[in-house]
């Protein structure tokens, strides 16, 4: 028997069910312009239309592709940096100092410089994402690496795992809880940075992602479309968090009894 209280899932449903009529009530009760608060029906139909016509789907796909590519590059870089900094204590400290300096910088703050250096193309968006993902992943990887129990290290040595083999077969799974925590932060930061970057950069190579979608809805004063875009960003954000990360967590560190 759980502690007396309420299932968060049901609470979530109840909350949404309360917010929706509240939205309509405020809108109608206050006779607020549909440009400020569009009716739910028109938001829904804008969403549906975007999905059916495929325009919204293309933008979603593009945004996800960007973030996956950026995250992939950042992951490879982070592992490489971890490897390098294990080889030399000087590098380790240098990376630590750089991390302390750059980790707190929101990717969007770097945008003006990135525009100067990497231009306004896809590469600039990727740089923003890589920055947002790299530092949290690296700092978590390093923390995780430091906390690998000695028994596992020695077990690895006993089976003659050294160098990359040790990293892949012992260090990677052993630091996985930390990696996952780092990826969670990275996702939150990267997703926000991506949407902001897309809103600033405009269309890139054929389409512009969800940020651009919202920007273009805004300039055409299409409020329902604007809210539909915001809704999609919210949904994807929480779907990735609650479905993907939770699923990975359940399939890995919870199954292994390794939760931090």
């Amino acid at each position: 028997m759980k502690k007396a209280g309420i299932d968060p899932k049901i609470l979530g449903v109840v909350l949404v069910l309360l917010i929706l009529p509240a939205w309509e009530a405020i809108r109608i009760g206050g006779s607020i312009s549909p440009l400020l608060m569009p009716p739910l029906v028109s938001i829904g139909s804008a969403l549906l239309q975007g999905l059916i016509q495929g325009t919204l789907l293309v933008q979603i796909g593009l945004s996800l592709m960007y973030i996956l590519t950026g995250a992939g590059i950042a992951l490879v870089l982070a592992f490489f940096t971890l490897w390098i900094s294990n080889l030399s204590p000087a590098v380790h400290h240098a990376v630590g100092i750089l991390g302390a300096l750059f980790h707190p910088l929101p990717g969007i703050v770097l945008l003006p410089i990135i525009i100067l250096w990497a231009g306004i193309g896809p590469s600039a968006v990727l740089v923003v994402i890589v920055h947002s993902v790299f530092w949290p992943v690296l700092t978590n990887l390093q923390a995780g690496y430091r906390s690998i129990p000695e028994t596992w290290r020695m077990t690895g040595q006993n089976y003659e795992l050294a160098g990359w083999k040790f990293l892949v077969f012992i260090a990677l799974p052993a630091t996985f809880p930390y990696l996952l925590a780092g990826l969670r932060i990275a996702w939150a930061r990267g997703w926000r940075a991506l949407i902001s970057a897309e809103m600033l950069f405009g269309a890139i190579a054929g389409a512009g992602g969800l940020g651009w979608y919202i920007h273009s809805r805004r300039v055409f004063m299409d409020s329902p479309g604007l809210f539909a875009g915001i809704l999609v960003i919210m949904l994807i954000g929480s779907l990735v968090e609650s479905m993907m990360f939770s699923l990975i967590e359940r399939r890995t560190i919870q199954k292994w009894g390794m939760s931090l």
Partner: protein
Amino acid sequence: MTGQHEIPKKPILELKNISAGYADYPVLHQVNLQIFGSEVVCVLGPSGCGKSTLLKIAGSFLAPKAGSVVFQGKMVTNPDHHRLMVFQNQNQLLPWMTLEQNIRFALKHGPLKSHPSSWRERIAKSLQEVGLQNAAKLYPHQLSGGMAQRGALARAFGCQPALLLMDEPFGSVDAPTRSELQHLLLDLIANHHTATLFVTHDLEEALLLGHRILVLNSRGFITLDSRSTKPGHPSAVRQAMEHPDLRANRYDRP
């Protein structure tokens, strides 16, 4: 337990003039030790006397400050799967793999690297030996403390190492389980004829398991029991109980 077995003349592991520790805090000072094939050497000693350091040096996990480690006639400096370590820590099975996968992992990277076809049989056999055939698909965190240590034994003996290095492997389980595990280890050693360097602070355990019992203190080793003694021999027990070094030691166990 049938009679004593023949112990070869040539040592399988030889520690020569080993020193370890820091300049102002020497842990080991010119320690010599020979272990012969299929004998069980138990090392007793007060906590902090360097028992664990000795084991790590024997497994080449730690380089001695002076002296050399000779294994099967060769100087060694890196750990290998012929000298396997079993820890006290119940967390020593890798948690991201099931028990079965842990053993397969050991075989795959250890002795049976190039014989994948024989893994399945070997895994089944070693699980059978420790009585965990029904726990093959369980993850380490699902095992009780005693089961986890059995699993560690299965993983180690599955690799059929030449030498086992055991660091108080039964130190963190309750008394009945410890006794069970001790007898299991006796059976395993009898079947596999594996030479074992067994570190413990438990005198009864040393008396039960060891062919030879050594006490490690700041002055080096004191031999308590000769290797002609059969494990568990009553005279050995009496002799050990009366030894002044251990009598003092029994009150300051870690």
